[in-house]
């Protein structure tokens, strides 16, 4: 359209110009013609004038002649004379004028001829004078007249010819004028038409332009509105991303609340904000972090209290507009301000639980997009708070479990130690028993000896009792071990008991009463011991939770019958009144464990009978003991025995405590009964009450609920279950290998550059595959995430191209798995995906391109991969002629790290050349049995290695001394000895040097010497002195050597005491010795003693270095002969000072 218009415009304008040019040309030509014509007209007029002049002259001459005639006056002849002069001249001029026209020339010539004739007439024959006769005159006149007529006719001819020419020329001028006018008029008319057309076209174009302009403006407005919308959306989205990023601190140690409020306030550019976390216990919202909040602002709100508290009751955001002026304050060092503005409270919920509230203040009204951002981000924030809280909780629980486990093991060990001792005692007892048995045969002869032996047994028994008490003391800590040991414990005791019983039965009848009594004592003691062990086992079982409560409907009357029967005999034997009362309001049965109840009652009763003297009374009464709305039974056992003092009442239920240390000796028993009872009652859900008065008796009341309720499973049990729930590993068992895209799975050879494409779109995968192949890669294609992982593991490709949306395992997860896998994490992963996700930046991918991808994109991706592969190629140089003949090491290493290259050279010269030529990341060199020579050889390339920071691994196949090792360590970073799995070790070391330490981080230097804050100054005082460093810790020797050499000292090293003595023998001029203490062969103490005593070097300063810091160590060193003493890690400044002191003397 536009083109057409402008074409038309240009056409019209062109036409107009042409027309103007044409008219101008025509006009110009006609003007030129007219000028020419005018010139000619003028010429004609001139000719006519000249003709007229000549004629006048001729007329004048005739007139003069005639007048003269008539008058005879000479005066008149003058006119004639004048004409005679002028006429010929004028004729010449006239001839000149008409020379262009042949006709006129001819006419003028005729005229001239006629005139000449006339003039000649007048001159000759026509001479007149006064004297001339008349007739003659008449004739003359006649003749004259004839000639004159001829001249006049000639004049007329010339004249008419000129006039004809004049009229022709005038007509030509007129004609040309007419033509010009016509042309100009027509030209102007045409021009006007063209202009009209043009104006019309321009006007219509302009009109449509204006219309289009208006339309454009309209759509621009629309676009702007859309942009604004998109910008808002973008703002919200990047806000979500930014805030999410801001709170994603990996270590979990930073303050999440602070991170949240900081990032929210920073992103939304708000002046102030605060975050409150909800504490469930107290139901309060506690302010955890705030930005620019006045210190007067509240720090905690109850739920529903204040605007924060009430906001927490709601699920939506609460906006408070129109808050009064001065409602809130912002503070900074520069001042504070208050304002109107608005407040928003965002409550954070995860499912049904409130996590916290974020309160934000703005001096301006909150915009829609700000609110939108808050709405979109609050779920994430709540979840991250929840996650962080959960993580902290889990970590605490895990730590608790670890502590409990440790405590359990230490308890087990302690118990085991005790138990071992007990076992030892049992063994001793057995041995004694053995002796006793032997003695039995000789009993009669060596009666006195028997007594003695019996004493030993008694002694042993006593020791046993003591040990048994020790067992009580420690076994309250439940031990599964002890429970399991019951059999082993009882077996030997059983034999003791059986043998003692046999003895006391005295079946052969060869023992006297005394001896029988002794044997009975043995039996009794043994039984006590067994009882003790049983009690301990019971207690430990209860405490270990190994006792099960088996509740049943227990008939109260059957219990009464049982205990009545059990103790009635004892009662009558001891002469104690024994009564049992039952309250009639009790139910017939209660639901509890009858066996345990009776066990407790038996224990209480046996105590009661034990401590009640003859004539006393023991009463058991069954009565209800309800508490609040809980129905309970109370069973009291009351005696009139010795009673228990109030202080001791606290103790008797504790395991291994009795009312009085002497009680057991008087009354026997283990004292565990009450502890067991207490534990059992606890298990039954009841309690024991005690009231007692010393000297008057005691009353124990067993209180049990009518109905036993099993306790809920303990927290630790459920905890254990929780812990076992861990990340489910990805199963690669049932991966189906794709067959849709043909790839190189079968054809990958070792060393082939291989690329793995994980892409669910088979078509795009094919494209990538072809591309990769064209780039010279062998290609594997996986269409699913798990399949990709499988191939990655199986083929260890050089690079991976990864899609994000994948079946089974998505790309992000897969990337995470790959990066977490030791074997796979070094493979570069290039992501090609339709997603745009900022998680990428932390995810560890090599690069990222977005779908759709064009060829350039693919080129770029592959060149990125290639660059990476080239840059990450690691090169290892092996210097060896004897070893590494096969490439097993290379094979092993490249299996895991295909980006590695190995080169091998046979000698050092070649190696040096190689190292100078190209860059290596590690050098492995072998050293044969001649260590010194090997070290010398290797030191030739030391400078190169140091300069390029290439680590050196030394490989050797012989045993070496500590001194050799020291030498080797000086030039190398690791020493590897030939051994069956040496390649594995080499692999580990190579990995360490090639990959783990690549970030310019040296192997963590441990602190053997602590450098002082300032670099030690070399004041020259130690310069030239010889020092012997004796230490088997190589690292320490190096550190010290460096330090001392910086002081210009001459350092000799020895790895142990023996070497130190050798060194002192050969170097008589050693000035000072630094002596480590813990060394093999000969330790520092002995070395120092020998130096002082055997070598008589009493005045040689020896400074002992020791890792030990305990108080006695110093004295020990000095006693052994040390001059002074310094602890490791060595403080350099202190050591140097010490050495200066000892060397200045």
């Amino acid at each position, binding site marked *: 359209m536009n083109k057409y218009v402008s074409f038309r415009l240009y056409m019209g304008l062109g036409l107009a110009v042409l027309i103007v040019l044409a008219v101008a040309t025509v006009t110009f030509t006609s003007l030129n013609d007219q000028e020419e014509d005018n010139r000619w007209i003028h010429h004609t007029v001139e000719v006519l004038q000249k003709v007229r002049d000549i004629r006048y002259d001729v007329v004048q001459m005739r007139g003069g002649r005639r007048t003269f005639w008539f008058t005879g006056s000479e005066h008149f002849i003058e006119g004639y004379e004048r004409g005679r002069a002028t006429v010929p001249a004028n004729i010449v001029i006239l001839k000149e004028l008409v020379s262009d026209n042949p006709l006129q020339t001819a006419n003028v010539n005729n005229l001239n001829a006629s005139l000449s004739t006339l003039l000649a007439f007048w001159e000759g024959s026509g001479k007149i004078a006064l004297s001339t006769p008349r007739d003659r005159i008449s004739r003359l006149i006649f003749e004259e007249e004839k000639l004159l007529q001829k001249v006049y006719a000639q004049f007329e001819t010339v004249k008419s010819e000129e006039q004809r020419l004049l009229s022709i020329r005038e007509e030509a001028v007129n004609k040309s004028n007419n033509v010009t006018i016509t042309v100009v008029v027509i030209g102007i008319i045409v021009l006007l038409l063209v202009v009209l057309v043009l104006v019309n076209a321009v006007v219509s174009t302009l009109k449509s332009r204006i219309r289009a302009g208006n339309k454009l403006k309209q759509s621009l407005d629309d676009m702007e509105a859309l942009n604004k919308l998109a910008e808002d959306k973008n703002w919200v989205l990047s806000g979500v991303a930014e805030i999410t990023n801001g709170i994603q601190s990996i270590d979990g140690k930073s303050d999440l609340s602070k991170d949240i409020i900081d990032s929210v306030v920073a992103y939304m550019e708000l002046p102030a904000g605060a975050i409150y976390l909800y504490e469930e216990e107290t139901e309060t919202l506690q302010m955890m972090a705030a930005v620019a909040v006045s210190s007067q602002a509240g720090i905690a709100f109850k739920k529903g209290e204040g605007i924060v508290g009430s906001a927490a009751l709601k699920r939506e955001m609460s906006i408070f507009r129109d808050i009064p002026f001065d409602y809130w304050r912002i503070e900074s060092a520069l001042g504070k301000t208050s304002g109107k503005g608005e407040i928003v409270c965002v409550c954070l919920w995860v499912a049904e639980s409130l996590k916290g509230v974020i309160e934000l203040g703005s001096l301006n009204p909150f915009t829609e997009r700000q609110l939108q951002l808050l709405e979109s981000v609050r779920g994430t924030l709540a979840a991250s708070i929840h996650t962080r809280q959960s993580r902290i909780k889990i970590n605490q629980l895990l730590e608790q479990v*670890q*502590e409990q486990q*440790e*405590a359990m*093991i*230490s*308890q087990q*060990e*302690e118990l*085991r*130690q005790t138990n*071992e001792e007990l076992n030892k005692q049992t063994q001793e007892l057995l041995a004694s028993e053995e002796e006793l048995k032997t003695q039995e045969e000789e009993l009669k002869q060596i009666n006195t000896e028997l007594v003695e032996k019996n004493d030993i047994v008694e002694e042993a028994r006593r020791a046993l009792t003591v040990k048994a*008490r*020790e067992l009580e003391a*420690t076994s309250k*800590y439940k031990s599964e071990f002890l429970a399991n040991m019951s059999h082993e414990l009882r077996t030997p005791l059983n034999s003791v008991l059986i043998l003692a019983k046999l003895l006391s039965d005295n079946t052969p009848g060869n023992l006297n009463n005394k001896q029988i009594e002794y044997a009975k004592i043995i039996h009794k003691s043994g039984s006590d011991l067994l009882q003790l062990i049983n009690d301990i086992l019971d207690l430990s079982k209860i405490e270990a939770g190994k006792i099960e409560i088996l509740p049943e409907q227990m008939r109260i009357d059957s219990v009464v019958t049982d205990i009545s029967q059990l103790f009635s005999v004892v009662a009558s034997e001891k002469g104690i009144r024994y009564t049992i009362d039952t309250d009639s309001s009790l139910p017939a049965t209660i639901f509890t464990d009858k066996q345990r109840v009776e066990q407790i009652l038996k224990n209480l009763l046996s105590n009661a009978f034990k401590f009640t003297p003859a004539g006393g009374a023991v009463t058991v009464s069954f009565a209800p003991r309800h508490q609040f709305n809980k129905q309970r039974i109370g069973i009291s056992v009351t005696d009139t025995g010795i009673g228990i003092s109030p202080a*001791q009442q606290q103790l008797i239920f504790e395991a*291994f*405590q*009795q009312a*009085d*240390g002497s009680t*057991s000796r008087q009354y026997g028993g283990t004292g565990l009964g009450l502890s067991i009872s207490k534990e059992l009652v606890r298990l039954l859900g009841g309690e024991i009450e005690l009231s007692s008065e010393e000297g008057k008796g005691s009353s124990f009341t067993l209180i049990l609920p009518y109905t036993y309720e099993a306790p809920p499973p303990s927290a630790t049990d459920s905890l254990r279950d929780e812990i076992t729930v861990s990340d489910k590993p990805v199963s690669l068992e049932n991966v189906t290998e794709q067959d849709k895209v043909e790839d190189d799975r079968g054809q990958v050879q070792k060393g082939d550059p291989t690329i793995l494409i994980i892409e669910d779109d088979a078509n795009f995968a094919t494209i990538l595959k072809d591309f990769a192949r064209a780039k010279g890669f062998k290609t594997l294609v996986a269409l699913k995430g798990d399949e990709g992982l499988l191939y990655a593991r199986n083929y260890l490709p050089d690079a991976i191209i990864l899609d994000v949306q994948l079946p089974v395992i998505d790309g992000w997860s897969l990337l995470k798995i790959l990066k977490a896998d030791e074997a796979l994490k070094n493979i570069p992963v290039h992501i090609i995906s339709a997603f745009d996700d900022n998680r990428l930046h932390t995810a560890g991918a090599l690069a990222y391109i977005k779908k759709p991808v064009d060829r350039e994109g693919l080129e770029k991706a592959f060149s990125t991969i290639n660059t990476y592969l080239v840059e990450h190629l690691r090169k290892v140089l092996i210097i060896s002629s004897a070893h590494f003949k096969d490439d097993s090491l290379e094979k092993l290493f490249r299996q895991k790290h295909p980006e590695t290259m190995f080169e091998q050279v046979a000698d050092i010269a070649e190696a040096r050349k190689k190292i100078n030529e190209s860059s290596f990341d590690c050098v492995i060199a072998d050293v044969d049995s001649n260590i010194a020579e090997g070290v010398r050889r290797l030191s030739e390339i030391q400078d190169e290695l140091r300069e390029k920071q290439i680590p050196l691994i030394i490989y*050797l196949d012989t*045993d*070496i001394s*500590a001194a050799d*090792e020291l030498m*080797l360590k000086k030039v190398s970073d690791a*020493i*590897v*000895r*030939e*051994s*069956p*799995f*040496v390649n*594995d*070790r*080499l692999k*580990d070391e190579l990995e360490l040097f090639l990959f*783990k330490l690549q970030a310019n981080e040296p*192997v*963590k230097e*441990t*602190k053997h010497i602590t450098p002082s804050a300032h670099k030690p100054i070399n004041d020259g005082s130690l310069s030239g002195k010889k020092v012997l460093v004796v230490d*088997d*810790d190589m690292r320490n020797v190096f550190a010290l050597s460096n330090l001392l050499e910086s002081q210009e000292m001459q350092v000799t090293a020895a790895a142990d005491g023996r070497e130190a003595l050798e060194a002192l023998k050969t170097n008589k001029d050693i000035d000072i010795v630094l002596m*480590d*203490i*813990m060394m*093999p062969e000969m330790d520092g103490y002995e070395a120092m003693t020998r130096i002082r005593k055997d070598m008589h070097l009493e005045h040689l300063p020896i400074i002992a270095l020791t*890792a*030990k*810091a*305990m*108080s*006695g160590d110093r004295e020990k060193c000095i006693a052994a002969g040390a001059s002074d003493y310094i602890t*490791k*890690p060595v403080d350099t400044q202190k050591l140097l000072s010490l050495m200066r002191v000892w060397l200045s003397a």
Partner: protein
Amino acid sequence: MSSWQFDDRAAIEDILRVVARHYGYDFSGYAYASLVRRINRFAQETRCGSLYDLKYRLLNDEHSFRHFLAEITVNVTEMFRDPLYYRVLREKVLPVLASYPIIKIWHAGCSSGEEVFSMCILLQEYGLLERTQLHATDINPANLDKARKGILPLRSMREYTANYQQSGGNQEFADYYTAMYDHAIIHGELRKKILFSQHNLVSDQAFQEFQLISCRNVLIYFNRDLQNRVLNLFNESLSPLGFLSLGMKESVRFSDISGTFGEVQTGTKIYRRKN
């Protein structure tokens, strides 16, 4: 039987302070619950009826203190304890150690030496003993004296034999010791590479660079802070890629160095330095 018990933290701390000042042994980093039990046991054994008695005895009777030291530090040990652990040592650790020209091993808290003897037997069987230097340290000199003798009760040998066999040993276990009366003495050849020295993990420093540090069932008696200190000490004393073995219920997990170590085989508590 004593009728009282120390369970008051101030009292316990008082005793520990006295011991630390007088003898240089600092037990303040020991696990509190265990410490209370040990001290009470000692008090009961020695019939110290009061805090004052206990302090008096500890300060004035060095022999009593030696006894106290032995009681406080639990010395339960056996040869080839946890056979699985030794099996993994055989299969996974010794092959790596074999590639060091001089192998350095530290048994921290060696008690009466049973574990370090076991280690020597393994090394002997793999032909590595000759080029190994073993340091065995303990806080208690009495234990070291006992360990230096290499004498064990004969009755334990049956159990140790079973342990040995379960750990993958296929030699004649009896060839490693000579039985005499009711004792067995571990052959001197096996013990000659062991250097026994006193070393207190609480206060003393690193003294060598080792490829393997074994400290089993010692950390359970320490509280978290002390465990952390000791683990850092071990980390400093290990060569790159060195091994650290702990007791079955111990872990580096809650310490500073947890990131630096990886477990060689899950559940055996043999860790390896990653760099």
